């Protein structure tokens, strides 16, 4: 019979050391996050006023204080919304095909492969593609919609991947339970599978939105640039918050740099707000918890 063993000192020490390393790694990971947030809030709060949120940069001279990012906020919201409207349905349908209909066949393997390839496309390449196709080849003007197209190229693979993951997590039992009730496959997907995976899908979509909301390079090549308010994403140059930050931060005077910080803060807040809204929707739609 083996006796009850006591934890040896060396094991105790190893445990401590590894625990320490894990905490250290965590701290290292959090430091940049906290410092970014801290810097942006500290420097951005100064100009974060009503003026900033309601005015554009039109007629603001190079050395003038004042001005705002209203045009950029409108642009970012419209572009991201349009990009989501394009990429979420396509991405979701792709994921549904891969999980529910593909059965690991040749087409679904090809799709999977190309989604992986798309994940690796640098954002500037997506911008260049739309520039070449939309603006140069089709001869259409720079517009918020062109920017949305570039962003949707970046969003789509993220949406497909996360939705696919979430759909695969739905237990097969539930599909079978639904089939056994004499429910057709597409209805099973609509009424049983998708609602069950909804929370996760929304989280995935929000991550994709957060990713593209901060993209600068593709916008630079597709929505061009403007200091004025342009509410129509389908005609004429627009602005986006990342572009605004990029532009203002490159200017030589402090008032512009302050605007850049505030622009960054606004962008972070917008993404956070969207996240919050999505989470509320998810909670409202999610299965009721508890007994």
């Amino acid at each position, binding site marked *: 019979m083996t006796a009850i063993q006591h934890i040896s000192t060396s094991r105790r020490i190893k445990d401590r050391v590894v625990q320490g390393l894990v905490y250290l790694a965590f701290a290292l990971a959090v430091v940049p996050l906290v410092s970014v947030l801290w810097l942006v809030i500290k420097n951005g709060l100064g100009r974060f006023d009503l003026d900033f949120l309601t005015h554009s940069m039109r007629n603001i001279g190079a050395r003038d204080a004042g001005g705002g990012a209203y045009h950029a906020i409108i642009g970012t919201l419209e572009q991201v919304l349009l990009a989501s409207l394009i990429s979420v349905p396509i991405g979701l349908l792709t994921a549904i095909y891969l999980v529910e209909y593909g*059965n*690991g066949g040749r087409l679904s393997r090809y799709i999977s492969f190309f989604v992986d390839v798309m994940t690796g496309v640098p954002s500037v390449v997506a911008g260049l593609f739309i520039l070449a196709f939309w603006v140069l080849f089709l001869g259409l003007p720079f517009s918020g919609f062109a920017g949305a197209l570039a962003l949707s190229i970046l969003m789509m693979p993220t949406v497909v991947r996360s939705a696919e993951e979430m759909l695969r997590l739905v*237990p097969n*039992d*539930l*599909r*079978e*339970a*639904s*089939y*056994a*009730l*004499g*429910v*057709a496959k597409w*209805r*099973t997907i609509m*009424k*049983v599978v998708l*609602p*069950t995976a*909804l929370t996760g899908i929304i989280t995935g979509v929000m991550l994709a939105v957060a990713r593209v909301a901060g993209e600068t390079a593709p916008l630079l090549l597709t929505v061009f640039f403007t200091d004025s308010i342009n509410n129509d994403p389908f005609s004429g140059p627009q602005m986006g918050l990342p572009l605004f930050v990029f532009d203002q931060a490159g200017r030589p005077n402090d008032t512009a740099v302050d605007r850049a910080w505030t622009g960054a803060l606004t962008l972070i807040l917008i993404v956070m707000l969207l996240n919050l809204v999505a989470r509320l929707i998810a909670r409202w739609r*999610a*299965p*009721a*918890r*508890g*007994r």
Partner: protein
Amino acid sequence: MSKQIQVSGLDAYYGGHKAIEDVSMTIEPRSITAFIGPSGCGKSTFLRTLNRMHEVIPGARVEGKVLLDGEDLYASSVEPVSVRRMIGMVFQRPNPFPTMSIYENVAAGLRLNGRVSKSEMDGVVETSLKGANLWNEVKDRLNKPGAGLSGGQQQRLCIARAIAVQPQVLLMDEPCSALDPISTLAIEDLMAKLKDDYTIVIVTHNMQQAARVSDRTAFFNLAEQGKPGKVVEMDETSRMFTNPTEKATEDYITGRFG
């Protein structure tokens, strides 16, 4: 509304693997038929061929005939979805829809199949839950999630869900294997009650259960691992458990193997 099932020369495959071979039997209406046999002998597979759930698995297919009151379920013109509407199924593990309340779970079959008025639905939900002996336990919390019930209650909820679409036949794949004796008893009582209206087929590993609840019993076995499963013997339950014809049946029932 109970119907007879006649199976003749049925083979079922998973891809290239033949899981069951040449099964023929008659399942009588308004009775409980039990399938017993060692694990992996194809009982559940056979059960799933009866309502065309087998083919839901990629690569799975069926050869042979299943007649429901004379109508071939595997005729090329038959819509599998409508077969499943007529032949309900209860699974081994309780699987209520997690996004739905108790009420919605029971209503799911009807609601997902078309429009039913609210008052009609209320009636169906109540009768189904009463039919599944669950009404008294849940009538005050119909809007709470179905996943919040205990295992035995969840299984009865699944039974209520299955009978809400008013099938002709109810297939039960080891419905009590995940339940405690009290919940098992509740479900056995329920089966005895349901048999007045439905044709019931149950797969079970519990010999006593088969002896207690069923009218007829079929014993499935396979010659060896990797070979397809077959029906060794099928007879009145009382005969099967007291005086089986086949040696293998007797060995299995008395616990000499399996």
